[in-house]
């Protein structure tokens, strides 16, 4: 039988003579930037320099400890290297920097300025001084980026699986459901249904076999929160699942991971294997009367499998097509047994609630949406990456304080660049300047026609066309529609065609009415959540940016200059007749008129933007 306390003691003992720890971020972002090579360099150069760097702790090693971590969130600046206990954070570390780091910051305590993050010219020593981190509240992500995700013992040493042990040993299923219900935790995957209520529904079903499923099929293009949790702290998800299984009476679980997430799949599989080996999964966990096993299954690439019934079909080896509810999965789910499906982040929050207690949890966030939420922050902002904030945080705080403001095409920050934030991906909506100060929580967002959804936050500047954005999402949903129900299959196709007409300047005002009528029909009439939320990007942009639609339709102009089909260029008075544009134009669309005036032939023009880029006098404008 597993003894958590023994593992904690052994781990601490092994660690006691370690003076410094080097953590190299091995999240997908940093790996893409070469962090694994950096890690290798540390090993090799330390060996050359005869520095006592350990990559594994067996007994009572001395010296330094080198580990990989999951995503630290500051992906744009990777590879990241953290040094503990001082908390130094080096950004954009190259293999060439490794020797210097070892010499200066490991053997001595010298800070290397050029590898530090600078905020408006001011040097920031570590996470505690960087606004991106300062302004967050990392609860679920707390251990991501610190602990070694592939070492179950470290998770245990940091208080892991204590919550699982507590609920298995000291609480009844009803008490667990009650506790989660009292905590007010709402599902992080989409609509924000109360997790405690969901569990209770499954718990009340009388069945010999029940399942719990972790939905890690994060398909929203522009969101990577779940990936980061699975990569950075896979055991928190397993612990959440164990608690869910005890609460609902399930003895088998599935973790369904998107197949594109190679690293998450690998780490999740290893974590489950380790948990089985150590006795945290299997028969009579903790020597108590609860047995539970987990299977890790890779999805095969279908956004619609984020929909519960489709996900179940796919686990059963079928096409991932949703089926009508009722029956709900809690009544008849996987192989017709009661099934509870929770999102990755929801499950990773569960141990936090158990450990900290309901009261402490409810102090974070708002009354109706307690706790924190992770967001994948992308788009035209200074700092992109993964953040976690209390629910109810304002958009202004996120965009301007954490993300550091909106950038233009040259990367400069201008407050007036801000146009909109797209939240919740293809199922979500957009928020505008007027929403900068509303609290981001489930209910407030619903009121303004958006949703927390998966948590993708894409910041858009004045150079982004909202109609084009709606078109992008519609293209995505029509491709990802399972094709089962008429409204979604044919409806998304027709909505896309109308949007294409609009961005081409060939739509009439009638098209706009038809678009709206169709969008509303798809919204109420579709079979599943994917279909019902598919029109959101259209409905929400129509609500807040109708003027942009009108400009495309009536004036045949794209205010953001993104829709190339109705874009034209003109040469203004700033022109000094240098002839550079004339020479550069690849299709000879620029001609010389009398008086050496240059003119653009809009029929020949292929809108490649070369002339604009080549003009030193900003004399060519998009019209």
């Amino acid at each position, binding site marked *: 039988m597993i003894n958590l306390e023994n593992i904690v003691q052994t781990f601490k003992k092994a660690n006691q003579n370690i003076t410094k720890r080097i953590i190299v971020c091995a999240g997908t972002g940093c790996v893409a930037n070469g962090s694994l090579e950096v890690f290798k360099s540390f090993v090799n150069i330390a060996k050359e320099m005869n520095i006592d760097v350990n990559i594994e702790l067996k007994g009572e090693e001395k010296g330094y400890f080198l580990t990989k971590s999951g995503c630290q969130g500051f992906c744009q600046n990777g590879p990241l290297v953290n040094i503990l206990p001082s908390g130094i954070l080096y950004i954009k570390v190259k293999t060439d920097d490794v020797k210097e780091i070892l010499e200066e910051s490991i053997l001595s305590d010298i800070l290397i300025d050029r590898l530090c993050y600078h905020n408006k010219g001011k040097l920031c020593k570590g996470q505690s001084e960087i606004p991106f981190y300062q302004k967050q509240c990392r609860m679920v992500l707390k251990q991501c980026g610190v602990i070694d995700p592939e070492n179950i013992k470290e998770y245990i040493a940091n208080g892991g699986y204590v919550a699982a042990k507590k609920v298995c040993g000291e609480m009844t299923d009803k008490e667990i459901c009650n506790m989660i219900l009292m905590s007010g935790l709402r599902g992080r995957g989409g609509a924000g249904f109360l997790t405690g209520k969901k569990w209770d529904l499954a718990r009340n079903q009388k069945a010999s076999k029940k399942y719990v499923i972790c939905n890690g099929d994060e398909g929203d293009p522009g969101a990577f929160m779940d990936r980061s949790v699975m990569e950075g702290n896979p055991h928190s998800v397993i612990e959440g699942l164990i608690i869910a299984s005890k609460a609902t009476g399930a003895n088998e679980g599935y973790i369904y991971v998107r197949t594109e997430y190679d690293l998450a799949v690998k780490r999740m599989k290893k974590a489950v294997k380790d948990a089985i080996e150590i006795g945290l999964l299997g028969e009579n966990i903790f020597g108590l009367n609860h047995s539970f096993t987990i299977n890790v299954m890779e999805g095969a690439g279908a956004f619609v499998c984020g929909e519960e019934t489709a996900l179940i079909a796919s686990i059963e080896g079928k096409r991932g097509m949703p089926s009508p509810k009722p029956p709900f999965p809690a009544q008849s789910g996987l192989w017709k047994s009661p099934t509870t499906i929770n999102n990755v982040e929801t499950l990773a929050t569960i141990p936090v609630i158990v450990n900290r207690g309901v009261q402490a949890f409810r102090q974070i966030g708002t009354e109706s949406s307690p706790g924190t939420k992770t967001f994948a922050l992308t788009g035209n902002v200074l700092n992109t990456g993964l953040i976690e904030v209390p629910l109810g945080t304002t958009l202004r705080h996120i965009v301007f304080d954490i993300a550091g403001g909106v950038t233009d095409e040259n990367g400069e920050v201008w407050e007036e660049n801000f146009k909109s934030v797209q939240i919740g991906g293809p199922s979500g909506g957009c928020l505008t300047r007027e929403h900068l100060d509303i609290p981001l929580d489930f209910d407030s967002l619903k009121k303004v026609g958006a949703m927390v959804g998966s948590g993708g936050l894409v910041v858009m500047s004045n150079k982004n066309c909202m109609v084009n954005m709606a078109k992008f999402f519609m293209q995505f949903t029509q491709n990802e529609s399972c094709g089962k129900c008429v*409204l979604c299959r*044919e409806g998304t196709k027709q909505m896309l*065609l109308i949007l294409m007409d609009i961005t081409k300047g060939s739509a009439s005002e009638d098209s706009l009415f038809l678009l709206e009528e169709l969008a509303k029909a798809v919204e*109420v*009439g579709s079979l599943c959540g994917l279909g019902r939320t598919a029109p959101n990007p259209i409905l929400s942009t129509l609500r807040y940016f109708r003027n942009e639609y009108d400009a495309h339709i009536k004036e045949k102009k794209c205010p953001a200059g993104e829709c190339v089909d109705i874009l034209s260029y003109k040469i203004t008075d700033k022109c000094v007749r240098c002839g550079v544009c004339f020479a550069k134009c690849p299709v000879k669309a620029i001609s010389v008129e009398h008086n050496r005036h240059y003119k653009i032939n809009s029929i020949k023009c292929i809108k490649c933007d070369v002339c604009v880029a080549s003009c030193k006098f900003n004399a060519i404008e998009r019209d």
Partner: protein
Amino acid sequence: MEKYLTINSKKVSFNNEKSLLEVIRNENIELHTFCYHSELSVYGSCRLCLVEVEDRGIISACSVPPEPEMNIKTNTERIIKIRKIIIELLLANHNRECTICAKSESCKLQTLARRLGIKKIRFKNVLQKSSEDASTYALVREPSKCVLCGDCVRFCDEIQGIGALGFANRGPKSLVCVSFNRELNDSECVYCGQCARVCPTGAIMPKYEVNYVWKVLSDSKKKVIVAIAPAVRAAIGELFGLRKYNGDELAGKIVTSLKTLGFAKVFDISFAADMTIVEETNEFLKRIEVNDNIPMFTSCCPAWVRFVEQYYPDFISHLSTCRSPQGMYGSIVRRIMPRVFDIPDRDLVVVSVMPCTAKKYEARRHELAKNGINDIDCVLTTQELAMMIEEAGICFEKLESCAFDMPLGFKTGGGVIFGNSGGVTEAILRNIMNTKFKNLNEVEQFSFVRGERGLRKFKISIGDKELKIAIVYGLNNARKILKSIKAGSKYDFVEVMACPGGCVGGAGQPICTDLIVRKKRTETLYENDKVMNLHKSSDNPYVQKLYKNYIGKPGNLKAHEYLHTNYSYKKRFKEILKISDSLQDDNIKIDVCFGNNCISRESREILSHIVNFVENGKYKDRVNITSHICLERCFNGPNIKVNGKIIERCSLKMVEDAIRDEFDRLKDEC
């Protein structure tokens, strides 16, 4: 306790209805649907049955169970708008050449567009080009008319247990097709045609052959002989608004119209059915006596026969070798009638009118041909007969009855009830009593075998013997019975019809998805039986005469030549797995069976052994290995084929020897 809910302000009681849709339809509100069928699972794709429920918003009535106090509105402005949009969306992606579509007037999409008053399609036409699939004798698929409701897919899978059709791709590229988008002929289809019956549009239709029949009818040299199946008379009236007439009267009208159309002789398949019963009873009693290939399976349903040949080759010997009534009719007309009527064989054209699409396939089976020429030239469905009658302008409803031509026009009740599920069994039981005991003579004597359920089991005492009988319709039910037989269940006689309700529910019949209509057809045949003079097939004096003059005794050599047939394995998969990298012609060819029976019998070890044996010996590069799924010797596996010779129950040593022998033989030849 009675429960109540409100539909359009009217209080309505409900009990065990599974869905709101059923409750609403009970109230005589025909909520339109494409994808809802009482026989199939709930699918929820067409979204046409949306209703508005107070406090719950808009939901689909087919998938939500009724609850007390629900307040339902079926025709709010919002719902009407959505319904119209759905139809418009479908029409924007539909081949709208309705005037030349065979389904015109019975197409659900066309009907709905009319009922909902669609005047304009506001959406762009997004129909993709696709080609018609007329590869089989039975059916024609027209993908441009598919609305993707999935009825055909579910029927083929859930009721027939075949899955020849499936969904492919997703989103805007979704389609219903055969695997790899091949032709239907390259699939596991057994041609029952039920997909065409449930299809709401003209996307799958029976293959029409009326043009051929018109052509031969107008050829003065040809004598066209026709016979109609029992089930035809039970349904054709539906198409002409004649619901009150009994089967005999309708048969009379059919004879008159066929004569008017120019057929030389009009016979009744029921006569041939009587012969089938006589022959099959004899076969059954013989098998029982020596306990040979018991249980015996009926073989009059061609879809079922094909099903056994394809999926259960080890059960082929259990099929009755008797030809189906259509097969016997063809054989008698081809082999005996030319002598009787003095028509030269080359001028004779043999047509049958069937309720069935699989009969079109059956007529082309090479086992039912003589010298490469099939006994039957053309099979029409009930639908096609009605088309010809309409095309000729014949007022069917006003026609006087006319009698069938003799001798193949006389039948007993036994030959008539053949068209119902359980009919064959009942007719055979009547005949067994006749043959063995000659004491009882009642129509109702065995009526307990009748019924609406798809799987019925009985025990019947015949003298000192107890017979265990199963009656099945729906091929998935047949799978269940076969599985239980494999597991050791004992039956003596199993009747299988592929179509629900038997032949009356065949895919060649007038389109009907309503269970009540099908029940009416079943009743018509039983009523017809009642008014017949004779009920036991062997009492048919013309059958007796035929035996006496031309065949002799049931089951004798002549009977086997004229009235029996044989069956053979039919491949499910055409794919051949290439195991060797290169293929040269002059090498030894080895074929290893990898059907799933052979896998379980170590064909994998054998393959691995062959590879080792070849690679490490002098035979390197001289052997080509392929693998079949399968070689269809399932009960004798593992099977290997070496240069065309099949080795059953193959062992490692047998394979080595065979390769060595073959190698030596080739060397000698050189």
